[in-house]
């Protein structure tokens, strides 16, 4: 015991050294710009050649309170992030569980599982745009093929279908990372637990609910949290698919903030939106993780 403590003390004084290679670039290229970005949210910064900026403290936030377009987009963003994250998880878990079974073609499935991830995002969006096309789109062609009268439904322009259609694309695009993380989690579950349960006569379903599901909890929490954040923060896909249309139905907040900052040049106001997003997402994550009684880590 004594010797262990000695050896662990030896371990104690190296963390700074271990972290140094990561800390230097992180501080220079992430923490500093982030700090500036957050600070800009409390100023009147605008795009322009040598424009002075002045701190305005909470002015941006007071203005933001009455910006109904932003809150509307915030609502859309929450729905988008929640449903997309859920679908990614559900599909990813199904695939991960199947990959752990003894089946043929798994080598192929493992490689294919990475396709959405390996496909450049620009291509993902263009491809799905073509799938959803009203006349020559793959989806309508297939539906017509099996006798479903879709007519010329334009999935991405119809006010009822545009948002769900974009969510499906989001789920598809994020499924690969989720699957990979979950497979890693499944590998970590000691085989003995399953064997013991099986010898006790537990059914496959019972083994899933009593062993797999609780054991997977930490990985689930981590990947769900990250996916939620990424989804809430992503706008590239939506931008190419619908540009926020039709009629603002798919205007997610990240896209809204991007427009405000880059298109209209209101850096300070856009950064304030970013700060609000950080606060709200942190609160949501806290609630989610508290409910699960386990920390993110």
């Amino acid at each position: 015991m004594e010797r262990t403590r000695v050896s662990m003390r030896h371990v104690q004084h190296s963390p700074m050294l271990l972290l140094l290679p990561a800390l230097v670039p992180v501080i220079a290229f992430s923490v500093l710009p982030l700090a500036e970005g957050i600070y800009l949210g409390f100023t009147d910064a605008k795009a322009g050649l040598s424009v002075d900026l002045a701190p305005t403290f909470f002015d941006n936030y007071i203005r933001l309170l009455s910006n109904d377009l932003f809150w509307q987009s915030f609502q859309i963003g929450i729905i988008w992030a929640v449903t997309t994250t859920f679908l990614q998880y559900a599909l990813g878990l199904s695939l991960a569980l199947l990959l752990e079974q003894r089946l043929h073609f798994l080598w192929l499935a493992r490689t294919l599982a990475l396709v959405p991830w390996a496909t450049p995002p620009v291509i993902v969006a263009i491809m799905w745009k073509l799938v959803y096309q009203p006349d020559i789109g793959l989806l309508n062609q297939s539906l017509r093929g099996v006798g479903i009268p879709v007519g010329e439904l334009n999935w991405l322009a119809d006010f009822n279908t545009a948002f769900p259609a974009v969510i499906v694309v989001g789920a598809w695009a994020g499924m690969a990372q989720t699957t990979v993380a979950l497979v890693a989690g499944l590998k970590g579950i000691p085989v003995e637990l399953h064997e013991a349960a099986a010898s006790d006569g537990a059914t496959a379903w019972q083994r899933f609910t009593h062993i797999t599901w609780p054991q997977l909890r930490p990985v689930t929490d981590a990947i769900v949290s990250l996916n939620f954040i990424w989804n809430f923060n992503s706008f590239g896909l939506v931008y190419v698919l619908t540009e926020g249309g039709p009629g603002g139905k798919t205007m997610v907040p990240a896209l809204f903030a991007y427009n405000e900052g880059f298109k209209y040049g209101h850096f300070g106001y856009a950064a304030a939106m970013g700060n609000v997003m950080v606060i709200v997402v942190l609160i949501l994550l806290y609630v989610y993780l508290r409910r699960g009684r386990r920390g993110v880590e």
Partner: protein
Amino acid sequence: MIYRRSPAATALQYTALFALMFFLAFPLLWMLSTSFKGPRELVALIPSLIPVNPTIDNYFTAFREQDLVRSATNSLQLSLGSALLTVLVALPAAYGLARHASVLRRFTMSWILVSQIFPLILIIIPLFLILKTLHLLDSLAGLLVVYLVWSLPFTLWMLQSYVKAIPIELEEAASIDGAGRARILRTIVLPLLAPGLVVAALFAFISAWNEFFFALVVLQSAELHTLPLTLARFIGSEGVVRLGPLAAASFIATLPSLVFFSFIQRHLRSGLLTGGVKG
């Protein structure tokens, strides 16, 4: 795992597996099919999966017009560099984070969260100015550093949770047996971390391979352009897309990630998706 399944369950599993495989793979099929179609066939009202008049013109166009080879080489350098660098930097850091609860740990975890939530686009300009000060604009090295930092939140988070899963008693026991630090890390920690390292490398590789916006603002010279920048040039204004060459180029662009994955899958038998950690 060796549990009996009923034939019905097996059939169900295969159905689900094939459905998911199709769902995942159809872009590859689509790209492959489209890349062999001429411009006139691409606007056919009832497209066929197998091209009626297959042509390889699109591949020639893609290679000839847009410096596909050069940009693919740039992307490959960046992605491999990013995968390697990320693993090298993240591994010790993740170990340090997992094994030493400290202020640094809290700082790092908050940074990970905030950096992921705050809209990336809004820090582009501050980041751009820092890169400019350090003379890292318009260079692959500058982009590489950005990609490293950009991959770290995910890799650190993943890896430190893997480290935590390794019982510290294993290390202590080895230490009692007189093994040195380096040896403990090499013989005990590293093998158990292999699957996590694969995920980290894969993540860093693919992130760098696909990344568009940083590359857009950092790179100026055409000689340095990466693949996503080149692909974007097949897309015109107002939704005009040169589908054939784009599909050909995309198909080529998707393969390296899959090959990279197969490669590390084969070479790390204990790898994440093949072997598995013994629990």
